[in-house]
């Protein structure tokens, strides 16, 4: 057993963990990173396609290139990185936290730290989450697992596939499977509109003449040992039109049906979970309900662009540093999401600095407005050109735009969307 003392332990060496750690080290606090995989980078390592970094680096990078820009900062510093290491538990102490981790190389590791950053990312929703009827043969994969098999292990999940879900991961996998020689028969989407970016519809489906069935569901999986085919049924007004069901022969089904923050460790540590995001509830400094434990990236809420993950995690690193320097003992006020929004993060704000919010729309519109109200009185509006549930909205409330005289202890800020 080895004991390591640091100011901060960052759990997860993906885009969130690396950005938070870099920021904390920049502020001269000692940091260690624990990463389950053999290398830093997290999910970016399997996202070998390009399109990352347009906001953050003003150029188009592939996932591994984006990850490496951060990994180089980490490696150039004196930070300790424990790869191939899994955290099992966070224990609260009177002063700080004890974190237990295990690795083949070091055996059991015990970290004694003042603060912890949760940056474990998310997991994929699977067949059980969407309740697809039929037999239970081999050949049903989540899209991210298939992506890892193809891009990192060099394995083929199957030769004739159908993809469920038209989010960007599903679309990117349609192209990847075509490029590795599989026959992609169709993409099936339950919503009446595609969930992914238009450019991905063009370059991942249209380029390969892959049909996209909108307002359709997979109504049955056939096959005993291996998938042999699936039934697809159209929806009309949300109801399955069973007489129009058709069959597609295939040996593989890839599911791209959403992501859930990976919060097993957070739950065990007694952290309160936000029911809308499935991530921890956080205050304006991205600190969870347990003092000294912070969260950022996809473990907090699922982002659509890694650029936003980095942005949020740098901010989180700065908040952790403030906490260590005892700068965060300021009054916080309540922040809630109003009409047409699924959630807003964080759920508190401060009056003595700018506040950055991320939110997700419940509606698809071409012109909409964000409306900000403080205790029922309108504070401001922001025009948005296009909104849809799959595209995160970010908004910054400037300190100077907040009327501090109007704030009392029970003040509530509400943000909503009008279409």
């Amino acid at each position, binding site marked *: 057993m080895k004991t390591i003392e640091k100011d901060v332990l960052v759990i997860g060496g993906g885009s969130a963990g690396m950005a938070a750690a870099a920021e904390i080290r920049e502020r001269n606090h000692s940091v260690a990173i624990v990463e389950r995989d*053999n*290398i830093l980078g997290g999910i970016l*390592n399997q996202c*070998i*396609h*390009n*399109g990352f970094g*347009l906001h953050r680096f003003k150029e*188009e990078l*592939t*996932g*591994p*290139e984006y990850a*490496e820009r951060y990994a180089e900062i980490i490696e150039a510093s004196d930070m300790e990185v424990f790869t191939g290491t899994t955290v099992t538990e966070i224990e609260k102490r009177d002063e700080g936290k004890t974190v237990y981790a295990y690795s083949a190389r070091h055996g059991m590791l015990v970290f004694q730290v003042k603060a912890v950053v949760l940056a474990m990312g998310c997991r994929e929703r699977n067949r059980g989450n969407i309740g697809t009827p039929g037999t239970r043969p081999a050949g049903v994969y989540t899209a991210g697992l298939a992506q890892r098999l193809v*891009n*990192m*292990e*060099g394995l083929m999940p199957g030769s004739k596939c159908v993809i469920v879900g038209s989010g960007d991961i599903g679309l990117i996998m349609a192209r990847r499977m075509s*490029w*590795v020689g599989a026959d992609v028969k169709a993409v099936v989407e339950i919503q009446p509109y595609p969930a992914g*970016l*238009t*450019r991905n*519809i*063009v*370059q991942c489906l249209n*380029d390969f003449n892959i049909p996209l069935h909108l307002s359709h569901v997979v109504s049955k999986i056939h096959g005993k040992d291996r998938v042999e085919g699936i039934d697809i049924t159209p929806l009309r007004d949300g109801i399955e039109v069973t007489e129009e069901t058709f069959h597609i022969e295939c040996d593989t089904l890839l599911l791209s049906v959403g992501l859930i923050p990976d919060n097993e460790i957070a739950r065990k540590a007694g952290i309160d979970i936000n029911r809308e995001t499935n991530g921890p509830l956080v205050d304006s400094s991205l600190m969870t309900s347990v003092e000294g434990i912070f969260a950022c990236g996809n473990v907090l809420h699922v982002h659509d662009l890694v650029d936003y993950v980095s942005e949020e995690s740098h901010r989180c690193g700065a908040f952790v540093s403030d906490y260590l320097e005892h700068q965060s003992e300021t009054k916080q006020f309540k922040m809630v999401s109003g009409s047409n929004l699924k959630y807003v993060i964080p759920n508190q704000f401060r009056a003595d600095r700018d506040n950055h919010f991320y939110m997700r729309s419940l509606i698809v519109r071409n012109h909409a407005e964000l409306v900000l109200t403080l205790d029922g009185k309108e504070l401001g509006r922001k025009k948005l050109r296009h909104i849809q549930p799959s595209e995160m909205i970010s908004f910054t409330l400037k300190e100077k735009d907040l009327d501090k005289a109007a704030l009392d202890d029970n003040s509530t800020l509400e943000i909503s969307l009008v279409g």
Partner: protein
Amino acid sequence: MTKELICISCPIGCHLEVTQKGDEITVRNNKCSRGEIYGKEELLAPKRVVTATCPVKSDLMLRIPVKTTEAIPVELINRLLEELYKREVSAPVRRGDIILENFMDSGIDVVSTKTLSG
């Protein structure tokens, strides 16, 4: 002849209107200059950036990710992929190292997108 195309140069995805009159091609509805270039190229000779992985000899990884330095003509993509899947790379490799040079005289290289020390 007028064709409607969706620009893939960035995530905005402008709906372009590309018109060809004799030798002259005009692009409308583009929000930036990249849209004009994309519209013209897509009409005459479509190109795509290709990313893939090659087998690599290393203790850390089984495959090394690679990309074309520029978009390549779509008719070359299948031949390029075939070539890349066969090509075994050995570590050390640095990000940006050339894996395949001037593919079929296109002037386009394939480079590694990851650094692998050992």
